[in-house]
């Protein structure tokens, strides 16, 4: 076989030649260059948005963070968008966390290995790979059309529709990360608890969940970060992508009943407005978004390092 001869040749020259393996070193450098290219892209991206966005943040300061959407460059801000994103994050956390953790507990601790269990597990893995834009269609059908028949807040979708859609989007991620954390808890811990007469729920409640908590919390925070930056599905569930006025409604009314927007949606809109001055606003919005994401992920990593135990 040719492959075997090539391998044998490489091995023989490796042993016999005293010279340094320059082609091997070059190969390692190429591999490292691939990794550093990713770093380069990351740095170039951050540099570009900071360069474009910093003047806006410096000039406007707090005003940019609190001002609502406006067609005037000097008055437009991310206030309403930030509030919209935060409300949706609360909805995502309230829905996706209990359901996701519950589902993972069922799959890992209760379910026997039946066809139904395997179907659910395979289904969760596949849902994690469904493009985010398809979740927009789910949201449109389930959380705009059907939800509106029950409680009509706004015909074309409200913050509630947006939050529920994002919750569905990150649910499989919460389930998968929680399952991994539960699986990492050693069997012996459970068996010791069962041995002294604890019921299954008592074992889970007092031993498995505390042991898996750092992983569960980290996974949930990472999913929240993912939901925070997600744009595509919101286009279908009523997030307003144009200039709009909220009149003189109170803040809560604005949030719940009038058109809503979210930080990534606001950034998308500003990026696509032909007027180039809005690009600076988009960049400033991205800087704020990246700062929030970095802080949130930092907290998650800190939690994991602080509380994670290896068994």
């Amino acid at each position, binding site marked *: 076989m040719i492959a075997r001869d090539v*391998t044998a040749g*490489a*091995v*023989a020259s*490796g042993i016999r030649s005293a010279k340094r393996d320059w082609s*091997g070193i070059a190969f*390692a450098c*190429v*591999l*490292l260059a*691939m*990794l550093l290219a*990713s*770093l380069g*892209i*990351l740095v*170039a*991206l951050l540099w570009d948005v900071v360069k474009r966005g910093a003047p806006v943040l410096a000039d406007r300061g707090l005003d940019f963070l609190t001002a609502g959407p406006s067609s005037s460059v000097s008055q437009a801000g991310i206030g309403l968008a930030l509030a919209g994103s935060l409300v949706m994050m609360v909805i995502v956390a309230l829905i996706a966390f*209990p*359901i*996701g953790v*519950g*589902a993972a*507990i*069922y799959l890992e601790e209760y379910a026997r290995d039946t066809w139904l269990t395997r*179907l659910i597990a*395979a*289904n*969760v*893995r*596949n849902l994690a*790979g*469904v*493009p*985010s*834009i*398809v979740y*927009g*269609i*789910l949201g449109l*059908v*389930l959380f705009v059309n059907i939800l509106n028949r029950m409680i009509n807040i706004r015909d074309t979708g409200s913050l509630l529709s947006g939050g529920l859609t994002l919750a*569905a989007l990150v*649910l499989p991620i919460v*389930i998968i990360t929680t399952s991994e954390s539960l699986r990492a808890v050693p069997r012996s811990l459970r068996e010791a608890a069962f041995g002294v*007469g604890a*019921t*299954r729920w008592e074992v889970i409640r007092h031993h498995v969940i505390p042991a898996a908590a750092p992983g569960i919390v980290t996974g949930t925070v990472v999913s929240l970060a993912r939901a925070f*930056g*997600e*744009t*595509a599905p919101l*286009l279908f569930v009523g997030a307003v*992508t144009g200039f709009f006025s909220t009149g003189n409604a109170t803040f809560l009314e604005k949030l719940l009943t009038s058109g809503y927007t979210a930080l990534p949606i606001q*950034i*998308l809109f500003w*990026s*696509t407005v032909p007027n180039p001055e809005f690009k600076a606003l988009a960049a400033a919005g*991205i800087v704020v978004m*990246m700062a929030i994401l970095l802080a949130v992920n930092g907290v998650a990593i800190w939690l994991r390092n602080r509380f994670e135990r290896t068994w």
Partner: protein
Amino acid sequence: MATGTGIVTAADLRGGSARRRREALIRRAFGLAAGISIVISAVIIVSLIGHAIDFLRQIQLSWLVAEGWFPRRNEFSIPTLAVGSVIVGGIAMLIAAPLGLGSAIYLAEYAKPRQRRALKPIVELLAGLPSIVVGFFALTVISPDVVQRLFSSATFFNLMAAGIGVGILSTPLVATVAEDALRAVPRSLREGAYGLGARRRTTSMRIVVPSATSGIAAALILGLSRAIGETMVVLIVAGGTGGSALTFDPLGPGQTATGAMAALAFGSDQVKGSNAAFASLFFVGLLLFIVTFTLNVTSERYVRRARRHG
């Protein structure tokens, strides 16, 4: 127990009926939570298929092979979207495959533990980038400063810039899955190779990478699936928001399946209601779902094969 005989029976161990009832209730609640994922899938599939059939009823089938994708003019050329998605997905993989696999091989085979701890966050940070941010970067830097500088014939909005942006988003996924596959190759294989006098490159490329072929294939397929499903970069920089003629030119504007769906819901193109343009959203969504589902299932099959042999 209370009987005082000292003999514990099975009945004692079962606990009180209240305790048992609580156990059953909790079990059912968790089961319900697990069932919700099935409901989500079912709603996605049923609503996609149902509305896609509605769409097909509203149109003449010849509209599906019209000259381009112009939903307002009743031109729903599926080939236009398919070619656009293939071009963007292909360019994305030209970026993501070398960057992702190169990073994976370096992290798994070359980096010492300390170096790995320093370098791995690059991949994780890249994975955390929201697609809207990469879309903005594609618009402000990749298109004018990279694509248009390299190819003077490129228009400002072009499929190439979209493909590069999507490739950046797929890279960390390829890197993570491939690195896991490489690390799963048993140490003994590497030690066998070193024992025979093989150098590190020979060991990596002739022993470890071939053993991890299934996992690497899974990584590339997943990366492609992610690339085809990516929306925001395409919406911002591919230039197909208003529709697009059938084009094979990566340097000109074009439209992908995801971009077409987003454009239908975005800004001035908003075409809500019961018309065919709005309904086409579901038809394209169904095609996208089928393609990505097939890719994901294929990738999972490779992962399972890797696990069996590994």
